[in-house]
């Protein structure tokens, strides 16, 4: 976007200078980068505070809770439970503040344990479902494929290659087996080979996206900063 107002112009200049400061880090760590880093950290913390209030606590808890208090007489039992639960959560959260006193600091373990427990509990069945089962279902493929009654060599070989990969990599990950005999060593090596081919491919596949990012930054500097400024003052 070309700068259209003086605020845009000022912004584009600040953005451009900050970007250049970040790039200067590549050459050498320097004071300009340090200042940029300080600004970045500061602004992002401020932004984080606002975000956790504006998009989290305020609309999801504070507003409903206020609404609950104002109209508490015609609320259902579920709403009362919810409110009570929020009060309890508040209590658990307050325990965090015990960290400020050295002697009561152990109380802060409760909120930590609470968050951990919730995360783990919600996560476990989902892990089984979307990681183990989904992947297993995708791997359940026949090693003999028939299309229109005839054997499809290409598809069969592909499936065999895929299955061999899955099994050998899974085998490579076995921890409690002594892999000293030649057979298991070979299988493990095949597993490593699959892993390495996969990693190399992923790495190379990402190059294009990363170069695009850099191109976009250069484009910004050229179009919005240099040309935009010239246009703003009718020099172009």
């Amino acid at each position: 976007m070309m700068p259209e107002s003086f605020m845009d112009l000022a912004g584009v200049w600040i953005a451009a200078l900050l970007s250049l400061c970040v790039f200067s880090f590549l050459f050498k760590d320097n004071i300009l980068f340090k200042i940029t880093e300080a600004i970045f950290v500061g602004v992002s913390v401020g932004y984080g505070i606002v975000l956790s209030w504006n998009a989290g606590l305020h609309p999801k808890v504070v507003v409903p809770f206020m609404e609950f208090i104002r109209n508490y007489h015609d609320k259902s039992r579920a709403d009362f439970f919810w409110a009570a639960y929020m009060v309890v959560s508040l209590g658990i959260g307050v325990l965090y503040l015990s960290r400020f006193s050295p002697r009561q600091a152990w109380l802060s373990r409760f909120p930590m344990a609470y968050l951990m427990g919730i995360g783990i509990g919600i996560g476990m069945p989902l892990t089984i479902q979307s990681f183990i089962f989904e992947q297993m279902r995708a791997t359940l493929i026949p090693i003999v494929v028939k299309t229109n009654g005839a054997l499809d060599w290409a598809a069969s070989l592909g499936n065999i290659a895929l299955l061999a990969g899955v099994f050998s990599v899974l085998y490579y990950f076995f921890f409690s087996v002594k892999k000293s005999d030649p057979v298991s060593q070979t299988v493990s090596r095949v597993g490593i080979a699959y892993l390495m081919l996969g990693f190399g491919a992923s790495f190379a596949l990402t190059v294009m996206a990363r170069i695009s990012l850099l191109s976009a930054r250069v484009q910004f500097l050229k179009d919005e900063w240099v040309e935009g400024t010239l246009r703003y003052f009718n020099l172009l």
Partner: protein
Amino acid sequence: MLCIGCGIIMLLQFFVPLEFVQRDMLQWVNDSAIVVATFGLAIGLASLVHVHSTRIRRRARGWALSVVTLACATVVAVIGLLKSDWGPVVARSQRYDVLPNGVTAGVIEVTHTLFGYQTATVFTNTVTAAGVVPLQHRSVPMFDWFYNYIMYPLMSTVFALLAFYMMTAAYRAMRAKSWEAGLLLAAALIVLLGQVPVDQFVRLPAIDGVSLFEWLKLKILDYPNTAAKRSIIIGVALGGLATSIKILTGIEKPYLGGRG
């Protein structure tokens, strides 16, 4: 104890089909986690303020940078929390014109308030059946401005550093030191060649309608890459489950300082 209790309750709720449990309870727990995590953020902020203020008080090296950090955080947080749409008015007074091709409206003249010498002609607005929707005076909300001109450019520039780092990493580390590294290297080279239109410059045989390297690239992605990813995901899921179970059964208690 609390951890174990919560964990098991949340674990079981997955299987309970009541709409109340599946929808509301999850929502509740989510709300509750937001409340608790907010206090966590407060602790984080306290740590941040503590580290920086100590540095400032002791006039440690780079203490001025700490001032910058705290000041930026305060300004953004205060503006964002108190009045996130506050900002200077940048444009006022507009005049509708007629485009050369005879369509009414669609051109607007914007006079900028500060440095008012500048008059720009900007295309804007919607042609509607009802007529022209007038553009009111435009102000730039400072909070958005911080995002658009500080946060976003910095985020994307730091992200763009990866373009450089990929190159140095490739140069430094992609060497055929062992057969494993050789395979990684080979796969990377093939995919790199498959990504760009090499066949425009060199004559290459084509397979299945795509050029050699592209075909090889697709095969590597379809087979070794998929197989490796799948088994890693299955393994990771198992490892994650094992860690979860260890914590739920109290074999490992990271929040108590390890095995307690």
